[in-house]
């Protein structure tokens, strides 16, 4: 069955909404290195979706991706600060031993503990979903495919900024319109 694409600006969020919040939304809201480019998801989630009483969902896969993106973005910013590249500051051998990594990893875990888990129902991935993802895969990214299967199996709409999802036909998605992005706060990039 074809999924529908909804725009956040017109979606009728209510206590009947069941939403799987994708990794990129959490990252736009909470990553130190990325949240200055938030196109409006912080406002949407905290000032519209949560007050409407919508039910939020997450999965271990999304949490794993979130922690990974948080620390990889921190690694990239760290390399810029110390003027080193991937070869001279490899992630596992060098960066993971720094205080900067420990600080950013701790922040990611604290956000999972205080902002994601308490607000979301955690859904698991069943062997059936996994099997479906390796036999009837449809996306270009295995994690995305598994998240879509998860959403479909649980009757959830995915809140995402990911084009791979929004161009996909089987998962229903909500996203912020590319034409409705909030850019006025990005003074440093003028």
């Amino acid at each position, binding site marked *: 069955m074809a999924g529908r694409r909804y725009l956040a600006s017109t979606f009728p969020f209510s206590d009947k909404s069941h939403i799987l919040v994708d*990794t*990129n939304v959490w*990252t*736009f*809201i*909470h*990553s*130190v*290195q*990325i*949240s*200055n*480019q*938030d196109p*409006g*998801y*912080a*406002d949407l*989630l*905290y*000032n519209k979706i949560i007050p409407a009483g919508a039910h939020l969902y997450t999965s271990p896969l999304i949490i794993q991706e979130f922690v990974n*993106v948080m620390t*990889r*973005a*921190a690694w*990239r*910013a*760290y390399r*810029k*600060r110390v003027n080193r590249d991937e070869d001279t500051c490899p992630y596992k051998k060098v960066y993971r031993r720094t205080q*900067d990594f420990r*600080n*950013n990893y*701790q*922040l990611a875990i*604290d*956000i999972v503990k*205080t*902002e994601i888990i308490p607000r979301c129902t955690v859904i698991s991935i069943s062997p059936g979903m996994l099997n479906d993802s390796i036999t009837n895969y449809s996306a270009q990214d295995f994690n995305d495919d598994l998240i879509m299967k998860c959403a479909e199996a649980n009757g959830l709409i995915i809140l995402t900024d990911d084009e791979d999802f929004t161009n996909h036909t089987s998962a229903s998605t909500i996203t912020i319109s590319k034409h409705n992005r*909030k850019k*006025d*706060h*990005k*003074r*440093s990039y003028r």
Partner: protein
Amino acid sequence: MDEKTLIVKDVIQSNLAVSPEDGSNVFSILESSIKQKHLMHVDFSGLQTVTTAFLNAAIGDLYANQDRDTLNKFIKIDGQTLTNLQRQKVQLVMENARTRLSNDEIDEEM
């Protein structure tokens, strides 16, 4: 030097300091205060949630564009009004303000 206190909760009229737009309002007040050479104490008390999206717009942009000496002279963040997690976020936003990732770099990470 004149001293004032900016109570974030009063400026944004909410206990959720979450959106860049609200952070931008705080930024404008702090920037104006620096121009007028007033010492501003920033009070974060009473906030249930503070996101880095908010902090990047409120404080990160200041630290990206102003020199440290000026900021140390005119802006005092009241650490007592922050929770441990909020303090951790403020510190990381300050540290990263001058090495933000470009759009292309963010696309690669996400």
